[in-house]
């Protein structure tokens, strides 16, 4: 099992030279295909030392596992991916055209910087964190809703627009009090307090989302796979016991009934210093407010959430930082360093502990700078590889339960918001709609609402665009959204494309680029042409059928 015997260095090198030459000649792309496995050559154009260090560490894991990385993704594939991951939708057709054409060797790192300043960056990350925090329900303010999506959105919009330090954000969330629209941060807590349960849900979700650990396993018993004891859950829980909720109702003349006016998170007086929990053997034990080794004064007059928030902001154990780093890596790759990203702990060691450590300490040093964290991840070599695997990295398949080695990109189903916004971008509807932003936004919320009612489940963040159900396929095939996107009305993307100068091949290419951010290959072109020829007298229908097929395809509905 010696490496040199398996991959003769000379062969790899010579192939690399030849292939590089060909590709550079053809397209001016910065792709380097087969490379010596321990000699990083790829660069997005960024000079950051940290990125090189990460690249080397990840390369080492490829060498250790005797695999060969996939090739660097084509510009089209990578652009579509980075757009979806950073701003939440596919690239507009003109951006794709320019980017593929550009010969600037630093175009990828420049694109990342550009996207971090794109207004859709704020919108995308607001959506992501609002969904993490309160789920996808509460789309429009229902008159009985005790959670405000508007408020939560407002909070995160400010967080991401100002790029606020993440440790401060976490403190704001945990210490939040007040009105659910004035202080939107309270909505995380309110969403976990829908059912009366002594803060059990709140304990479980806070620690999972912001600390990356699953203490709920210890709600009923000691952790089965590590040395966490049952009191750990109840220690966290005791911190949240002073959390109250106050619902103000008012009479609504239209409906003739009482409706929710507003909801507040309030201070709740508790007399006892401890909470009691039951061991499996029936023994009752007390737990006190403790965060790791940091004891919180259990006296009833002390605001435990406030104390906890300050400990989180200091983050001496770097749990807040590590949780964010792992989740962020998972966002970009589909898998974090642990599976799932929010189940870290001694029972579940990370796949790449050194990378994780390096990113975590750098994130802390940066002052919990979220944009900087994204910039580092998106500039890594691993993030720039294609999603196609090769003969020598087939084992790198986390979907089959393997530890991810990041030797190729993993395919992710689009989130439902990504799907909607990408359909809009692909068919240029954002341009015709821009005159009436509000109406467009209402339409978006209505569709998302319908989608989520039909397909959403109770897990806050698992509503991807494709969960394998027939109603979803029916909705894509026959629903209003795709019907509208493929409309032949005057001014629509399709009618404009058909009316534009150029032959059928040029137009088919344009439609491919608008939807899949790539041009069709030779085989596709010839079979599509064949289908065009046999499609009857109305050419417009053929185009419409093609666009329908592209929007319904497996390639469209994934980020890869």
């Amino acid at each position, binding site marked *: 099992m010696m490496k040199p015997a398996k991959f003769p260095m000379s062969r790899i090198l010579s192939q690399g030279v030849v292939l590089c030459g060909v590709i550079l000649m053809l397209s001016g792309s910065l792709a380097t295909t087969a490379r010596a496995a321990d000699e990083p050559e790829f660069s997005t154009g960024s000079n950051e030392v940290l990125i090189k260090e990460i690249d080397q560490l990840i390369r080492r894991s490829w060498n250790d596992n005797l695999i060969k990385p996939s090739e660097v993704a084509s510009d089209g594939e990578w652009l579509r991916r980075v757009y979806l991951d950073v701003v939440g939708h596919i690239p507009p057709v003109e951006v794709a055209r320019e980017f593929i054409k550009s010969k600037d060797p630093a175009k990828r790192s420049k694109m990342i910087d550009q996207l971090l300043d794109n207004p859709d960056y704020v919108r995308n990350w607001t959506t992501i964190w609002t969904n993490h925090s309160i789920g996808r329900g509460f789309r429009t303010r229902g008159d009985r809703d005790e959670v405000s999506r508007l408020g939560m959105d407002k909070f995160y919009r400010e967080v991401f627009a100002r790029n606020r330090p993440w440790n401060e954000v976490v403190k704001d969330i945990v210490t939040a009090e007040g009105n659910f629209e004035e202080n939107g941060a309270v909505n995380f807590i309110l969403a976990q307090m829908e059912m009366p349960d002594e803060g059990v849900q709140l304990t479980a979700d806070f620690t999972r989302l912001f600390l990356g650990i*699953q203490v709920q396993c210890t709600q009923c018993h000691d952790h089965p796979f590590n040395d966490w004891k049952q009191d750990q859950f109840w220690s966290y829980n005791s911190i949240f016991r002073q959390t109250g909720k106050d619902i103000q109702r008012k009479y609504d003349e239209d409906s003739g009934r009482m409706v929710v006016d507003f909801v507040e998170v309030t201070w709740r007086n508790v007399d006892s210093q401890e909470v009691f929990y039951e061991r499996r053997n029936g023994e009752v034990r007390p737990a006190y407010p403790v965060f790791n080794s940091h004891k919180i004064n259990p006296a009833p007059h002390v605001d435990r959430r406030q104390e906890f928030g300050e400990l989180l902001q200091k983050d001496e154990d770097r749990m807040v930082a590590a949780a964010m780093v792992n989740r962020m890596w998972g966002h970009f790759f589909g898998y974090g360093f642990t599976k799932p990203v929010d189940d870290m702990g001694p029972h579940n060691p990370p796949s790449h502990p050194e990378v994780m450590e390096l990113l975590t300490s750098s994130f802390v040093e940066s002052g919990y700078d979220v944009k900087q964290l994204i910039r580092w991840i998106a500039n890594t070599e691993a993030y720039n590889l294609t999603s196609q695997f090769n003969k020598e990295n087939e084992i790198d398949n986390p979907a089959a339960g393997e530890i991810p080695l990041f030797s190729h990109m993993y395919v992710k189903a689009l989130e439902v918001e990504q799907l909607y916004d990408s359909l809009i971008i692909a068919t240029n509807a954002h341009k015709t709609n821009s005159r009436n932003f509000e109406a467009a936004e209402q339409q978006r919320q209505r569709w998302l609402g319908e989608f989520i009612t039909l397909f959403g489940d109770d897990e806050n963040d698992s509503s991807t665009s494709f969960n*394998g159900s027939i109603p979803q396929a029916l909705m894509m*095939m026959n629903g209003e959204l795709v019907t509208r996107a493929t409309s032949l009305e005057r001014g629509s993307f399709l009618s404009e494309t058909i009316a534009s100068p150029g032959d059928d091949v040029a137009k088919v290419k344009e439609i491919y680029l608008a939807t899949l951010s790539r041009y069709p290959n030779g085989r596709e072109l010839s079979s599509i042409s064949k289908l065009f020829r046999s499609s009857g007298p109305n050419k417009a229908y053929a185009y419409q059928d093609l666009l329908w097929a592209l929007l319904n395809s497996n390639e469209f509905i994934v980020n890869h």
Partner: protein
Amino acid sequence: MNLPVPDGMNRRHFMRHMAAGATILPAMQFIDHVKANAQTVRKNQKACILLWMSGGPPTIDIWDLKPGSKNGGEFQPISTKGDMQISEHMPRTANVMDELSIVRSMSTREADHGRGRYFMHTSYVPNPTVIHPTFGSVVSYELADTRKDLEIPSFVSVSGNSMGPGYLGMGHAPFVVQSNGQIRNAGRSNETGRLGQRLAMLGEIESNFINSDRGDFPKAHQEVYQKAVNLMTSEQMQAFEVSQEPDQIKQMYGVTGGAGGMGMGANRFGEGCLLARRLVESGVPFVEVDMGGWDLHNDVFNTLRDQRLPQLDQAMSALVADLKQRGLLEHTVIVWMGEFGRTPRINQNVGRDHWAASWSSVIGGGGLKGGQAIGATDKDGIGIESQSYVPGNIWATVAHALGIPLDTVHTSKRGRPMKIANGQPPIAELIG
């Protein structure tokens, strides 16, 4: 070209289209499962119909009356064909109570709508570490292999969303339809005859991606689309067309309005029950029909007398009689329940509030013993004076009736073994 163009209702369109243009031959790999007779009655296939009373029904006014108690309320009991009495406002159902049994000692501890809904559907209390499947998903999962020629979904939820499939996966999620059988986006618009052309193009694009070595997702996507197309064009879709029923049957369920000349509008719940019968007849193993409006904190007696009970009575009695007459009742279990019952005490708004400690559900058909009242509450309806039951007992009884082994264990996404019906035993009196 992997996408087969399906047969079925649209086949004629395809054929005409093909004859005209001789167009899309590559896509026309008809899969060879043309059903000569889609209406074949599958009488010996087991099924379950859950009548879900959303909001929490006051069972003390329906199934377990307390005349003479301060909690008794306004209604009187009447005798039935079974060995028990029920509310005077359920006269038609009284006539079929020899087929159904009442479990009068449900004690289910969850008196919040969300938690009760979860508990009653799944047999498990809500738990942050795992999402349990609703029992319809369990049945779909367990019986799917016995319904190989079923082209329509094996778990249909009528007028409500039921709950999710949890760790059993989206393939066993409820397929939600309205009571008139209308399916969202089922796409009659494709009768323009262009579906074939579209699928041909889709097949081209999808195969290209499938063959590009990117894992299992691209293929899985294609398979779901195949199923959806099969559904769109299946003859079995006729099962959803309640309107095809003869008038006399529609009247029986109250679909056409006027429950027994009481001047009422169309009975949507009745329509849902009729749809359930059609689906069961076509081989669907689990149908849930939702009836709302039970959260009666105010004005409970007038609402029951004038609205809820006449509708429930007509629909439920029609369902039992209709199944019986078609020879389906002995293979079809009917379960009636909601999140919880309602307080024996009548509140200051002449309503009843949430109450999970002592209430009733109803179960029958599928070979279970009917005509019994199982368990008992005390004279004021507050305490239980017998063995008490939880939803797991009901679902274990259903599993038994459907032939699903009670030692069946599923595995949660975290690898935890989960017993069917939470490991509860079935109710002995019912299976005898």
